[in-house]
């Protein structure tokens, strides 16, 4: 049983969720103004999952993410200014402007990267868990991925390996009801993706992905199991993607009322706020202070990013290889 979150955990979690929300609201605005390019996928609506899972992780734990990676990066402690600069393609970006939204990584923070290949993060986290086990680091590795990714062969192969080797890994499936423009029910014949754990005799859990407290509890259990040597788990979080698949998505394929219902009644930030204030865990003024902080941080990130220099075209071939003698070599 996971202990209930402390006040500090709640403060950090709210800050994380609010930062994700504000960061991405800023992105949508910037794209609309034509100031940002590339393929951007927002995490709005799913914030509670990254915040609650990462609340149990330290810097020596690893996370592998997806194309929808901003939330996981922020929750894992990647610097928001660096992220914004990255999206602007600047030299000061997390990846020096070379990666972009789908490739933000910060290995020093245990963030193995967003990933443009659906399902590809799952084996990466499995490998990080293998390192933790063999080197006895005490670390845990978490793979975040979507419902759609659970249809990839890499999912199957990885969970099987993790179960065989009893790795300290947690597989967090964020089931948001859609894979791009196709409803999950159309391509996944089981009601719960958690059911798939049976194919590997793996521990499975289901959480309400809109409820920070539920995800916190379930993820806590899964991560404690992993850390304690009891092996991997599959944690399914039921959630919803509030915005389009990508920024610019015309959203013609989704009934408007479907999204409206979720947004109105199941917004994870509003649910969180209602509960913490109702239960006296945090005060309204605590929350508003964080909002102010976060707004300032995001504004500052944008301001700095757009003033930062671009990389130099002459550096095109830098960093292909670690062995510098081969740099740019064919």
């Amino acid at each position, binding site marked *: 049983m996971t202990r209930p979150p402390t006040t500090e955990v709640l403060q950090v979690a709210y800050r994380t969720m609010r930062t994700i929300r504000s960061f991405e609201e800023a992105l949508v605005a910037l794209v609309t103004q034509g100031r940002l390019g590339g*393929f951007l996928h927002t995490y709005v609506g799913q914030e509670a999952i990254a915040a609650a899972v990462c609340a149990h992780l330290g810097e020596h734990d690893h996370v592998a993410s997806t194309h929808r990676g901003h939330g996981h990066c922020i929750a894992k402690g990647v610097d928001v200014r660096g992220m914004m600069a990255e999206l602007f*393609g600047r030299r000061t970006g997390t990846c020096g402007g070379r990666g972009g939204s*789908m490739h933000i990584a910060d290995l020093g923070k245990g963030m193995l990267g967003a990933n*443009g*290949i659906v399902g590809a993060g799952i084996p990466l986290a499995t490998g990080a868990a293998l390192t933790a086990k063999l080197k006895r680091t005490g670390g845990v590795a978490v793979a975040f991925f979507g419902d759609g990714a659970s249809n990839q062969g*890499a999912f199957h192969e990885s969970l099987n390996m993790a179960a065989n080797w009893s790795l300290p890994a947690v597989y967090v499936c964020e089931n948001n009801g859609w*894979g791009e423009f*196709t409803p999950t029910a159309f391509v996944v014949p089981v009601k719960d993706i958690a059911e798939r754990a049976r194919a590997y005799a793996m521990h499975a859990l289901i959480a309400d992905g809109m409820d920070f407290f539920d995800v916190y509890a379930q993820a806590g259990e899964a991560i404690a199991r992993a850390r304690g040597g009891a092996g991997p788990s599959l944690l399914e979080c039921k959630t919803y993607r509030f915005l389009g698949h990508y920024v610019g998505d015309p959203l013609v394929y989704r009934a408007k009322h479907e999204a409206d219902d979720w947004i109105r009644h199941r917004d994870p930030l509003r649910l969180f706020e209602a509960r913490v204030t109702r239960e006296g865990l945090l005060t309204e003024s605590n929350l508003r202070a964080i909002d102010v902080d976060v707004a300032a941080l995001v504004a500052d990130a944008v301001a700095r990013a757009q003033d930062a220099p671009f990389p130099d075209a002459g550096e095109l*071939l830098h960093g292909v290889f670690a062995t510098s003698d081969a740099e*740019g070599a064919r």
Partner: protein
Amino acid sequence: MSAASLPAGEPRAIPTAFAIAEALRIAMASDPDVILMGEDVAGGGLRPEGTEEIGGIMSVTRGLVGQFPDRVLDTPISEMGILGAAVGAAVTGLRPVIELMFIDFLGTCLDPLLNQASKFRYMFGGKARVPLTVRTVTGAGLQAAAQHSQSLYWMTAGIPGLKTVIPSNAADAKGLLLAAIRCDDPVVFCEPKGILFVASDVPEGDYEVPIGRAKVVRRGSDVSLVGMGATVGMALAAAADLERDGVSAEVLDLRSLAPLDEDAILETLGRTGRLVVVDEATPRCSIASDVAALCVDRGFDLLNAPVRRVTAAMCPVPFTRVLEEAYMPSPARIVEAARALL
């Protein structure tokens, strides 16, 4: 049934994406065995009122599910399963057309092309037919970054038993796709980002552009610029630039990467004695290298100068605009390479 002889109608300027859609519609209407499969190509079957399918990430297949409800199949995100099933369907009587969203995803589904589709006929003693088409988006230029911008057609072109084609304009896209779908061999049909939303004249009706035939798209006498897909436009722009300096450049559009039209390459080399090949892919093990190698082999006696390859840089595709531009071939780089040969 070859439609090459049917009268093709009047041309209209439409984007390549629409020309592709037209080819799909014609192919499906003319052959009940043609099916489409891919992620979001139908978009979830019966839709709630007021919604529409998006028709694949590039909206190319939009509207097709309405016209052919049983033959446009949304798949899970399971490229290996999709391509493998397509091979199985192709050898048992269907003529599948698969949408592989980006060619970068080849990493998840190479085996059905590498070890199944391409080898069945030969390995089974010349007895199988594998009428499979894989449509896939290639190329950089949209800041789609390292995993959504590659030009991996060299990987499929290098596989014996597989054909790979790449149009440079909307009319060829339509005709090549019709030829690919009706071909009894597996064909990879590349849809370069750089031309997908560019409009050009496309004939109405049913026609095919033959696989395996390059085309001279501009006559010239001083230097040959050999391009493919989006680099044909770059080569034409470079040729226009060169012309201002009094240099007459011929432009050859390969159209088919495998089989390669070796004769057409040697013919243009024979006319000019100088050749620059322009390839959106990275330089190693590339179509560009094959063209150069052909020139120094069968074309040796025709050569008056080195053969230059203008390609992408030998690094992953960078995200930021300034690096992505430096990474890609460009008319300026072609001009520079051509000038150095004169």
